[in-house]
C-alpha cells in the first residue's frame, strides 16, 4: 500500500487521482505512527519550505519519514516534497530540512540567466534524464510541468535528471531508495503518469 503524506501543504487529490487512474489505491496519511506500515511513501507539497517543515515537525512526521527512509522502501518527494529531503533551504530565511540527501535549496539566481526569464519557473519544460529507475522505458528527454522558484543544488551522484531554465538545474534526484522530482508528475499528462507507474513497480 502506498501512502501520500497529508501535512496540510497542498493538493493531494491530484496525486491520488493519478494513482487511481493507474489502478492503484493510495492512502492519504496524516499520522506519524502509521507511516511504518506502508510499502511506499510519497511526500507531496506546495508552499513554503519553512511552513512545511513546521507542519511536519508539529505532527512528528519528520521523524517518521526519516525512520521510513532507513527501511529500503521507496520514498518519493514531489516538488516542495523533494526539496524537503535535503539539508536546508534559504527560502524566507534559513531552514533545516529532513537531511536525507546532502544538498541545499537555493532560489533561481536571475543574474546567472542566459536570457531574461520570469521567476517562478511555471509551465512545461524539458527534462533530460541522467538515469534511475523512475524513468524506465522513457525517452531521454521529455516535457513535464513545473511550478517553483527554488531548486536543488547537490552533488552530481544524486542527480537523476536536469532541466534548463536560465541555466541548468537539477530536476530529479535519486539516492538509494529515496527519489525526488521537482516537476509535478500528477500534472504532466502521459509522461508524468508513466513516472508514477514506474514508482508503483519499484
Amino acid at each position: 500500500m502506498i501512502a501520500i503524506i497529508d501535512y496540510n501543504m497542498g493538493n493531494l487529490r491530484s496525486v491520488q487521482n493519478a494513482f487511481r487512474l493507474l489502478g492503484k489505491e493510495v492512502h492519504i496519511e496524516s499520522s506519524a505512527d502509521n507511516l511504518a506500515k506502508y510499502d511506499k511513501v510519497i511526500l507531496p507539497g506546495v508552499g513554503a519550505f519553512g511552513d512545511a517543515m513546521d507542519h511536519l515537525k508539529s505532527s512528528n512526521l519528520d521523524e517518521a519519514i526519516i525512520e521510513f527512509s532507513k527501511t529500503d522502501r521507496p520514498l518519493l518527494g514531489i516538488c516542495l516534497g523533494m526539496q524537503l529531503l535535503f539539508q536546508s533551504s534559504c527560502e524566507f530565511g534559513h531552514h533545516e530540512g529532513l537531511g536525507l540527501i546532502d544538498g541545499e535549496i537555493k532560489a533561481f539566481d536571475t543574474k546567472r540567466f542566459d536570457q531574461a526569464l520570469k521567476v517562478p519557473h511555471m509551465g512545461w519544460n524539458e527534462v533530460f534524464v541522467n538515469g534511475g529507475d523512475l524513468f524506465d522505458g522513457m525517452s531521454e528527454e521529455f516535457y513535464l510541468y513545473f511550478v517553483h522558484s527554488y531548486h536543488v543544488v547537490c552533488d552530481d551522484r544524486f542527480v537523476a535528471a536536469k532541466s534548463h531554465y536560465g541555466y541548468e538545474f537539477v530536476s530529479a534526484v535519486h539516492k538509494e531508495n529515496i527519489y525526488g522530482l521537482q516537476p509535478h508528475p500528477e500534472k504532466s499528462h502521459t509522461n508524468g503518469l508513466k513516472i508514477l507507474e514506474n514508482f508503483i513497480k519499484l
Partner: protein
Amino acid sequence: MDVKDGRVVKGVNFVGLRDAGDPVEVAKRYNDEGADEITFLDITASHEKRDTIVHIVEEVAREVFIPLTVGGGIRKLDDIYALLSVGCDKVSINSSAIKRPEFIDEGAKRFGSQCIVVAIDVKRSGNGWSVYLNGGRVDTGLDAIEWAAEVAKRGAGEILLTSMDADGTKKGFDLEITSRISSMVNIPVIASGGAGSMEHIEDAFTKGKADAALAASIFHYKEIDIVDLKHYLKSKNIPVRL
C-alpha cells in the same frame, strides 16, 4: 472554457452564448489532444448554482492530468480552498480583486502565488486601456497597465489578460496591451481573446511577448487542431511540448 449552469458555452464579446458541450467531455478531449492547461470560467449567474463548478472540477480532475485553473465568483479564501481541495491547481480571481485588492495578498500568502491567477478584462479607451467588470459591462475606471503592476506586486502568480474588444472576434489578440503588460511585470502573462488562426497564436508569443496563449472557440468548434498548432509553433521556433 466558459461554463454556465454546468455546460460549456461560448459567446462573442461576452454575449450571445452558444452551447459547446459537457465540460468533463470537452476537458478530456483537450487533455487527450495535447492542450497544456485548461481554464474554466464559471459564468453561472445564480449564486445557488455555484457549487456546480466544484463538482465539475472534481470530476474533471479524476480524468485530466494537466494543470486546471478555475475562475468565476471566487470571493473568499474558503472558495479557493474548496476548489483546490478537489484537484484544481490555480484559481483565477477578477471582481473580488478589484473590489478588495488585499484579497490577492491573502490568497497568495495562504495558498502560494503559484495558484493565484488574476484575470484582467480590458477594453481600449482613449489612448489607453480600462479594466472592465462583469463580462465587460462595467468600466471600473482603473488603468489596465497600473492595475497589472499592482496585482503583480501584491503576489499574483500569473495574469490572464483578456481583451474584450478582441474576444470572440477571431481577428487576433490585442498585441499592444499584451506586450506592454508582459514586458512590465515579472510574472507570466496569458494572452486571451481573439485567437482565430495559428498565426494569431504565434503573434501572441512573438509580438505580444505573452508567456502563454488561451483560446476557446477555435478549439471548441474544431477549427484548429491542437497538435497541428503545436507543430506550427515549433516550426516557428517557439518552444512547445509535443
